């Protein structure tokens, strides 16, 4: 805990560290969310196709 308090209080590079963490995690979450949504969309399309196939 001491380390963190010192880190916040020293303040010299706090913004740099925080912004880099934010950027990296936002990039990784972005790719995660994008690929998840893409896969879900494809799954929906696939289910619809299978339904149409069985109707025939």
């Amino acid at each position: 805990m001491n380390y963190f308090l010192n880190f916040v209080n020293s303040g010299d590079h706090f913004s740099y560290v925080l912004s880099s963490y934010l950027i990296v995690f936002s990039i990784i979450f972005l790719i995660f969310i994008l690929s998840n949504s893409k896969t879900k969309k494809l799954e929906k399309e696939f289910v619809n196709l299978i339904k149409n196939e069985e109707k025939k």
Partner: protein
Amino acid sequence: MIFSLANPLRFQRLIEKIEPITLNIAIILLLIGLFFCFFGSPPDYLQGETVRIMYIHVPCAWFSLMIYSIIALCSIFSIVFKHTLADLISRSCAPIGACFTLATLLSGSIWGKPTWGTWWVWDARLTSELVLLVIYLGLIIINNAYEDKSKADRYSSILAIIGIINLPIIKWSVDWWSTLHQPASISKFSSPSIDSSMLLPLFIMTFSFLFFFISILLVRVRGEIIQRKIEVIRFNRMVS
């Protein structure tokens, strides 16, 4: 063992079992790692507090190289054995690798501002990492450029094999051109003088990123398999 998973459908069943587990592990490790990053590790003697950027910068850099070598291996495999699963993996790896490389470059340049005084230096390692990003972008572009998927896979695997040349340059650029621009930075890690209190968060973050990578990869591969299935169904309908 590997060849029994070679069938995309069997692979898909495996994915559905593993996927939630890897994501959970990744998030738990991430929380532990963040705790160690901010609360459990001292500032560096020379670099001060900016050393905390290292805990995410270095894993990202490692993964940008590792993902490329996965792509390269899969490309060689797909060219030699003409296997669909290798194509699927290399196709879904490319955007993830590009993201990790971008993260590496951005966090590195944020680290560089307080330490070196500039956002960017035309140093051998930085340049080669940038080239890696461009190669990743080229792979993504090729994957989407051709109407014929199998052709696109073959072309992108050829490009990936050409791009292997870049990997050793990135890896050893610090040793080869160390005298030119680079102040003591990354080569520092290779010396064993790094303290265990700083090594611990680094490794925890690395494993967390690894599981993140695996879970994203599995999601993407599942999507690719579904897309291929949709194509087959459409094609069958067109023929019959």
